[in-house]
């Protein structure tokens, strides 16, 4: 009897250690370079910033959800340009959410409340708008994340929809499906649960190889697809240890193909290789520099600096990472 208990305890311990060890890796060190916004020295101020994107010239674009605008800032956090005000017409926003920049410097913004995508020039001039509320092709139900691939095609998530840069519908994939929380915690035992389905995915990014990475927020995982929507693999699962997530939100890829994930409830950023191996993590709950209150967006600027939208602290924090 005692032997049985000891064996069970041993197996439990081994499983626990395996869970903790999963994703173990050795990363570089990070440090805060700057805090932009509330409490920070940068001149730009935010009211519930939600997402961020970098262009090739080193400018950053931030959706200011409660400010009904897009803010363009330079590397030092100075406000260069702001456009938009509250409304439902062209160039107006009710809740600007996801943001992405294409290879020509044009800006795409999804509007969560107006169920549309708008396209702007780098100077904030309105170019195009498409989408309406609904479930059909080219229709949206609270769009949040948005991304652009090497051919300037646009991806929007919730389910995933793909469009040309002119808003012409190309493809869609995925459906709403929840991974049970227990299976998510024990993803070592259930590694490929409900592949290709999503439960409130927040953000999306396209890698240098045109693979599409989706933060499947309430399934607590990252899923990876080809640009045509073929499921490739996933990683994560619910948890607070390394490589695990509690509502992954913003997702970004650097020029080396490393993936950064804003881990909302864990108040941290995690860095992975492109195939999902854990590299490093930083951050915890708080309002001091380097801490977060719900990070929702992330961008890597051409110089390598990492910009994190710290939603609950109404600011953007800038980090460097050395190897």
């Amino acid at each position, binding site marked *: 009897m005692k032997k049985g208990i000891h064996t069970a305890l041993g197996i439990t311990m081994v499983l626990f250690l395996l869970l903790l060890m999963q994703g173990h890796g050795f990363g570089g060190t990070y440090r805060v370079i700057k805090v932009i916004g509330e409490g920070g020295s940068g001149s730009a101020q935010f009211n519930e910033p*939600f997402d961020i994107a970098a262009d090739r010239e080193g400018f950053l674009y931030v959706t200011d*959800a409660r400010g009904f605008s897009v803010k363009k800032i330079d590397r030092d956090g100075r406000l260069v340009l702001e456009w938009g005000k509250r409304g439902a017409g062209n160039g107006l926003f009710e*809740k600007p959410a996801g943001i992405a920049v294409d290879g020509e410097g044009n800006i795409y913004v999804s509007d969560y*409340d107006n169920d549309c995508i708008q396209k702007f020039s780098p100077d904030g001039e309105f170019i195009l708008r498409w989408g309406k509320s609904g479930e059909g092709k080219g229709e949206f139900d*609270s769009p949040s994340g948005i991304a652009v691939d090497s051919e300037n095609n646009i991806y929007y998530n919730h389910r995933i929809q793909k469009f040309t840069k002119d808003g012409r519908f190309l493809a869609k994939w995925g459906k709403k499906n929840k991974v049970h929380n227990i299976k998510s915690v024990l993803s070592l035992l259930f590694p490929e649960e409900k592949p290709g389905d999503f439960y409130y995915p927040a953000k999306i990014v396209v890698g240098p190889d045109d693979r599409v990475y989706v933060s499947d*927020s309430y399934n607590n995982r990252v899923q990876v697809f080809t640009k045509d929507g073929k499921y490739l693999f996933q990683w994560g699962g619910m948890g607070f240890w390394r490589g695990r997530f509690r509502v992954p939100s913003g997702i970004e890829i650097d020029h080396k193909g490393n993936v950064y994930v804003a881990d*909302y409830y864990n108040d941290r950023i995690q860095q992975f290789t492109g195939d999902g191996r854990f590299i490093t993590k930083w951050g915890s709950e708080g309002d001091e520099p380097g801490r977060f209150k*719900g990070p*929702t967006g992330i961008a890597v600027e051409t110089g390598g600096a990492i910009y994190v939208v710290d939603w*609950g602290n109404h600011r953007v924090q800038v980090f460097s990472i050395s190897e």
Partner: protein
Amino acid sequence: MMIRKSLLITSLVLLFTIATGIAVPHDLYAGAKEVTIRVDGLACPFCAYGLEKKLKKLDGAEEVNIFLNEGKATLVFKDGVSVDREEIERIVKEAGFTPKEIEIRAE
């Protein structure tokens, strides 16, 4: 005889239908101005924005605020709008949350 009976039954059914239609099936609060809803499971911007979007679509809703830390939503209605408690509960549930207390205040 049969025709009279049929007419009587038809009339009764018609009257019952009309009466059901006239009866107020919901808790309507005329003249209510502010509503506070305690919501279970409200914790992140995605939740907050989703609920806010649905509440904004309520007839006469003028202002919607979500307080994540306090787990509550507040609504301000236009003057003269009747507030329907059941409709509010339905919308909160439809957004994926559990409504707890709903406090309705007149001006």
